[in-house]
């Protein structure tokens, strides 16, 4: 399995090497590869049916519990077959569809990588690894949606989808890590073994919510569904592949994957079912008033995803079975419908359904394909969709919780679906033909190949549904970890379910009849919808974003305001607070006060320094300030001298002198101090300064009174002459014991000098 993925990866990069001449046939080639892989996996089917699983493991980061683990079991089998098969069809379709665009190599690159990551996602049995593929699908979806990159709508939609799915992805990651911290591994088998442990853990509910956040965003459940609508900006093959058949199903897949681990609990049922129910109803309801063909299909996709989620929420064996069947049903008809939508768009250059009048009048093949797909969607026998719908009704009928409500909602949804299907069908068939489509029809007839195959499947599986049960059974047996037997029949005999189906159809047709051609009704309905569902998620997403940015802006302007002195104030106040806190903890005020009074003369010197520093602070004259500063410096050097630091004192004096000279040199070119702060500012700054000074003085006092560990200086003094041949210990430290410091220090000086030179010694730059 790893080999397959590597093959995809290599192939993807090899695409860029294909010479221009043959690049026309790239997609066909890829499609063949997909078919090959499909066949390969299909050949494993007997093994899987016998209850075997095929797995491989490569140790990667065992210390993090992150290994490359792939498992092909019943569940992944279902998905793999869908992905490769639809992938095959999509590439064939894309060969014609994309031929007129620029940058197709990039497109196929993304699309192929997407196939690979989707395969990786369903084959992974290590959850972190699965998450990696999960994110990759999001990213590739982003790249594909924004393929028409100069269209602003596409960019926005791409970002939206990435943002929403990315948010969900992060939640999922946290959930995975949380489970991992309970189980101590990320491996699927370990998780299944310890499912009870997880379910009984106190963190079960947060974990479930986080997982569901991932699922719902990916599978476009209410209220995250809006990104899927925007995603229709992508080229049609992408919509057909990612946004109906595969990627959005990743969430469903995850639900199935996690069902043995998290599923079946009361919380599971109570949270998932309502969300799914709302989604399916809203999707179908809003589909009926749309006029953009891709939007219609997007809404019905949302609705279908809702149905799938509901079925997993119900958590009975029947419902899961129904879910799997419907997975196939939906994949077949929806992929086909999207491809057809693309076909119409190509033919007419428009996505508005009202302009398609009579488009299929002279196109019998097209008409049949469209009809099969739409009828499958409507669930009309003998299409495959009918079987799916029957099963769903049955599942809802027998649901342990709120079955009647679910059933009613389900019927409502299907009534709407029927109406939508019929509406689309009739709008395409009837009406006046506005274009002469002869040439275009011929040109794009290859676009019908893939939908045709799918239509055949929809019809064929409707007639002989049991062929699928061999594929679905292993998947079910994964979920219930035991044998599962499925019998799929077209004809169930007369029972309540059939009655309900019939009722659905009747109501659907009635609704269709009511709305068809009744433009006023539709208009009114639309208006009502707008008023009723006044929240436009798309718009509120943008609004939320922009208001967030506004807050950020305010926040940033508040923090990063540009006044150096307030930056400094913040830092000083912050450090004062921290230090005060520390002094409080260490009881900094408890200082033993046995001070020796030193000779008067040095005290006098200190007093004078104090005064001169005060002058330097408050003086308004630059020169005077500097003079006072120099006096302070000299005074400090006297203090050093008094406390036996001879070299230090000399250095201080010389440096102080040099500093005065340099100041004077610079001062020649500077103005007088002009800026005067207000009195209040001065007082505030004074208070800050005094507080800080006080704190530092306290620290100094503490430092003076701390008992010292034996200092390493003793060694230095003892060895200064004997080993380093110098009597001046300070100098010996500088040039021998700590020569590296001095090296750094000289470097600093040299850099400073050259820096000053670089800074000043250039021709005057423009102001």
């Amino acid at each position, binding site marked *: 399995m790893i080999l397959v993925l590597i093959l995809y990866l290599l192939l993807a990069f090899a695409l860029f090497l294909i010479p221009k001449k043959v690049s026309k046939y790239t997609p066909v080639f890829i499609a063949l590869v997909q078919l090959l892989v499909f066949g390969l996996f299909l050949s494993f089917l007997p093994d899987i049916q016998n209850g075997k699983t095929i797995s491989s493991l490569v140790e990667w980061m065992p210390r993090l519990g992150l290994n490359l683990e792939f498992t092909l079991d019943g569940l992944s089998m279902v998905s793999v077959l869908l992905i490769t098969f639809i992938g095959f069809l999509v590439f064939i379709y894309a060969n014609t569809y994309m031929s007129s665009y620029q940058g197709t190599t990039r497109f196929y690159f993304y699309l192929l990588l997407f196939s690979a990551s989707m395969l990786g996602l369903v084959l992974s049995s290590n959850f972190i690894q699965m998450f990696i593929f999960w994110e990759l699908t999001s990213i590739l979806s982003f790249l594909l949606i924004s393929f028409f990159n100069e269209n602003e709508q596409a960019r926005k939609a791409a970002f939206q989808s990435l943002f929403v799915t990315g948010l969900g992805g992060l939640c999922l990651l946290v959930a995975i890590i949380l489970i991992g911290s309970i189980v101590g591994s990320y491996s699927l088998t370990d998780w299944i073994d310890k499912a009870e442990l997880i379910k009984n853990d106190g963190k079960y509910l947060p974990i479930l919510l986080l997982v569901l956040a991932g699922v719902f965003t990916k599978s476009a459940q209410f209220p995250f569904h809006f990104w899927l609508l925007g995603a229709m900006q992508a080229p049609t093959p992408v919509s057909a592949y990612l946004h109906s058949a595969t990627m959005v199903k990743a969430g469903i897949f995850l639900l199935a994957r996690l069902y043995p681990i998290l599923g079946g609990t009361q919380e599971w049922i109570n949270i998932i079912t309502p969300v799914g129910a709302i989604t399916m109803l809203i999707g179908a309801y809003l589909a009926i008033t749309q006029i953009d063909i891709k939007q219609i299909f997007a809404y019905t996709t949302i609705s279908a995803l809702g149905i799938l989620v509901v079925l997993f929420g119900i958590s009975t064996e029947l419902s899961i079975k129904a879910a799997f069947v419907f997975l196939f049903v939906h994949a077949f008809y929806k992929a086909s419908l999207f491809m057809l939508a693309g076909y119409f768009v190509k033919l007419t250059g428009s996505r508005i359904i009202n302009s398609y009048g009579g488009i299929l009048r002279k196109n019998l093949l097209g008409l049949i394909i469209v009809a099969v797909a739409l009828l499958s969607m409507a669930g009309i026998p003998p299409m495959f969709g009918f079987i799916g719908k029957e099963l769903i009704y049955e599942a809802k009928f027998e649901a342990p919780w709120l079955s009647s409500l679910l059933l009613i909602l389900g019927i409502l949804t299907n009534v709407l679906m029927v109406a939508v299907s019929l509406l689309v069908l009739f709008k395409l068939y009837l009406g006046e033909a506005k274009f002469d489509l002869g040439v275009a029809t011929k040109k794009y007839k290859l676009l019908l190949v893939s939908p045709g195959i799918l239509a055949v499947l929809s019809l064929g599986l409707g007639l002989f549904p049991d062929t699928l049960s061999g594929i679905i059974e292993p998947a079910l047996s994964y979920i219930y970890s035991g044998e599962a037997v499925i019998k799929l029949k077209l004809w169930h005999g007369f029972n309540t379910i059939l009655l309900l189906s019939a009722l659905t159809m009747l109501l659907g047709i009635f609704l269709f009849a009511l709305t068809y051609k009744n433009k006023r009704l539709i208009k009114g309905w639309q208006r009502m919808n707008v008023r009723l569902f006044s929240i436009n998620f798309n718009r509120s997403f943008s609004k939320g974003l922009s208001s967030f940015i506004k807050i950020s802006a305010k926040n940033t302007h508040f923090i990063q305001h540009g006044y150096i002195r307030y930056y400094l104030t913040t830092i000083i106040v912050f450090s004062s607070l921290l230090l005060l806190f520390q002094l409080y903890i260490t009881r900094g005020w408890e200082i033993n006060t046995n001070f020796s009074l030193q*000779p*008067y*003369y040095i005290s*006098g*010197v200190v007093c*004078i320094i104090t*005064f*001169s520093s005060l*002058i330097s602070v408050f003086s308004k*004259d630059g*020169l*005077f300030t*500097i*003079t*006072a500063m*120099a*006096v302070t410096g*000299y005074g400090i050097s*006297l203090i050093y*001298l*008094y406390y036996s630091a*001879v070299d230090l*004192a*000399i250095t201080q*004096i*010389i440096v*102080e*002198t040099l500093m*005065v*000279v340099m100041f*004077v*040199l610079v*001062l*020649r070119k500077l103005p007088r101090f002009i800026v005067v702060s207000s009195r209040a500012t001065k007082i505030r700054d004074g208070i800050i300064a005094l507080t800080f000074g006080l704190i530092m003085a306290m620290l100094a006092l503490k430092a003076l009174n701390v008992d010292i560990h034996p200092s390493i200086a003793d060694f230095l003094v003892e060895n200064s002459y004997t080993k380093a041949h110098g009597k001046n210990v300070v100098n010996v430290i500088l040039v021998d014991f700590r020569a590296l410091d001095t090296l750094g220090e000289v470097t600093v000086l040299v850099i400073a000098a050259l820096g000053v030179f670089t800074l000043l010694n250039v021709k005057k730059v423009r102001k």
Partner: protein
Amino acid sequence: MVGTEILNIAQLIGFVFLLAALLLAFIRLIKGPTMHDRIVAMDFMASITMGFVLIYSIAINKGMYVDIAIIISLISFIGTVAISTFLKHKNKNHE
């Protein structure tokens, strides 16, 4: 013994006077009124500092402090000169 005592007293007197001189110079430094007064005061303070160092070196009996006094005497006037040049420069500009 008497010698050290005399020395002690001499030190005491020296320090007191130097401190007084320092104080006076400092007052001149503060009061000004012109910058020239201040410069002179500053230079004067440097000289007093030199005296301090010398007496201190006698007090603790360390000859090396004399070197420091010499260095102070060598360089302290440079600051003064620098500030004076600045003043001269400024005055020239004013005229």
